[in-house]
């Protein structure tokens, strides 16, 4: 064995390993898109699903997924922002804060079924919220919170310390330094994290089966009263999302066109998540340029 041959060998192995990852990734995405995209149509996207007959769409599921995401972010983002600012800017280095960090890590690795059942027992049953978007959003907050907190903390910490000192030395209070200088500098990173975690929320199914429910009652998109049961904005109605729809149709669907519905839905889900991921980078860069020079 000589050095040159070892080097070639190592390079070859690394390329092969990367190749396997890429092939699996593209294979999966390609398979889902190829088998799903042909079924997509305007009709599929804009008509309600059907329980028995063929030709159902995913209008309500698509809307539910988006609405659930918005509610989840509304709950989890302020919490995560506060926690992230605390951990990055205020938390002293001691056993208590390292315990908090560990707890956050553990929270992020909890199996989603467990979180779903927990939310089911506590919110759906105990607090009597019932199967609802709100219960789903709370369950998803459990996943989202650790990811977002971590992301916000890292984004804030990666702003150079000199910026903090410069702000403080300018006669700004630490709060104003954080909100006026550190936070704007961290916005692109935070936004990227929000969009990436949104992708995860969008694709989640297991936890939602027990919380947001598996039924999509007929919605009236003209009813803006959030307290009406058929209003599309009512957070207390049960709501089946795209991912849950895929699971349900495959597990217990009795429509004749199961393949069409589930493949089409899967394709929509993948496309939306891909769009989230790609836009995360783009929006992050754009925003950074916007923030760093005013028009």
């Amino acid at each position, binding site marked *: 064995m000589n050095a040159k041959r070892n080097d070639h060998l190592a390079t070859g192995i690394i390329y092969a390993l990367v190749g396997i990852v890429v092939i699996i990734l593209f294979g999966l995405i390609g398979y889902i898109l190829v088998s799903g995209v042909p079924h997509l149509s305007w009709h599929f996207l804009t008509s309600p699903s059907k329980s028995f007959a063929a030709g159902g769409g995913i209008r309500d599921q698509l809307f539910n997924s988006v609405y659930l995401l918005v509610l989840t972010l509304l709950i989890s983002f302020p919490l995560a922002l506060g926690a992230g600012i605390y951990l990055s800017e205020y938390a*002293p280095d001691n056993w208590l804060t390292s315990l908090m960090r560990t707890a956050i890590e553990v929270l992020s690795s909890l199996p989603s079924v467990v979180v779903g059942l927990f939310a089911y027992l506590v919110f759906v049953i105990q607090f009597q919220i019932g199967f609802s978007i709100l219960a789903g959003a709370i369950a998803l907050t459990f996943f989202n919170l650790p990811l977002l907190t971590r992301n916000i903390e890292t984004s804030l910490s990666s702003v*150079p310390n*000199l*910026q903090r*000192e*410069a*702000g*403080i*030395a*300018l*006669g*700004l*209070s630490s709060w*104003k330094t954080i909100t*006026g*200088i550190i936070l*704007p*500098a961290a916005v692109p990173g935070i936004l990227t994290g929000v969009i990436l975690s949104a992708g995860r929320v969008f694709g989640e199914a297991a936890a939602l089966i027990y919380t947001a429910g598996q039924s999509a009652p007929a919605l009236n998109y003209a009813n803006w009263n959030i307290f009406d049961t058929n209003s599309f904005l009512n957070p207390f109605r049960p709501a089946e999302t795209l991912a849950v729809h895929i699971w349900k149709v495959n597990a217990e669907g009795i429509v004749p066109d199961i393949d069409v519905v589930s493949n089409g839905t899967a394709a929509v889900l993948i496309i939306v998540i891909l769009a989230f991921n790609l836009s995360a980078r783009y929006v992050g860069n754009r925003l*950074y340029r916007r*923030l*760093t*020079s*005013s*028009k």
Partner: protein
Amino acid sequence: MQPIITSQDVKLSYGAFEALHGIDLDFNQNEITALIGPSGCGKSTYLRCLNRMNDLIEGVTITGSFKLKDLDMYAEDTDVVELRRQVGMVFQQPIPFPMSIFDNVSYGLKLNGRPDKNFLEERVEESLKQAALWDEVKDDLNKSALELSGGQQQRISIARVLAVRPDVILMDEPTSALDPISSAQIEDTLLQLKKEYTIIMVTHNMQQATRVSDKTAFFNLGNLIEADSTEKIFMNPAKQETDDYINGKFG
């Protein structure tokens, strides 16, 4: 000459380690004082006491007295934020905030609640002129400060401090990260500024100390060895240690 800052018997420790062993030093109004000495001698540490930047470091204890005019800087009821507005600081590295030139210079004022646009524009122009940067940037104040050269960025940092109108400006090796031309421009700027401000600067560059400062204080191993007029320190120092240092025998 009127002293604007007086400090007596200043001792500072990081935990159990004492870094300053009792410093007595005064600074006169509208003068430039240079703090010189070998690395680790405590000159930067001392400088950072003067606007309480050392408060940010955990485990630091400071004893002794600091007075800004009649204000006891370390008294319980002293408003640290207000103190730092009166004693501004420029750092070794240029630290532009990630925003436009105009926003950079006006930021301290803006966040301190002076939103009047005309006032801000006047103050930005005035501060950039004082920092000798106005002519170079007046046509694109909306450009990101990150796009400027290092020397320009450092003058932005100076202009930003000037915009808050402090009485005293602390500078921690303000030219050490810059090329000779930019350094010379900053030095010119300092000589202009001392008409209106009191400047205290740490420098490793002894030529710089002789060119710009009125007074020089020599630190070594956490002690103030000697402080006098710059001419006296460099031509005829009282202590052998000072003589050895400025002639390059150590440090």
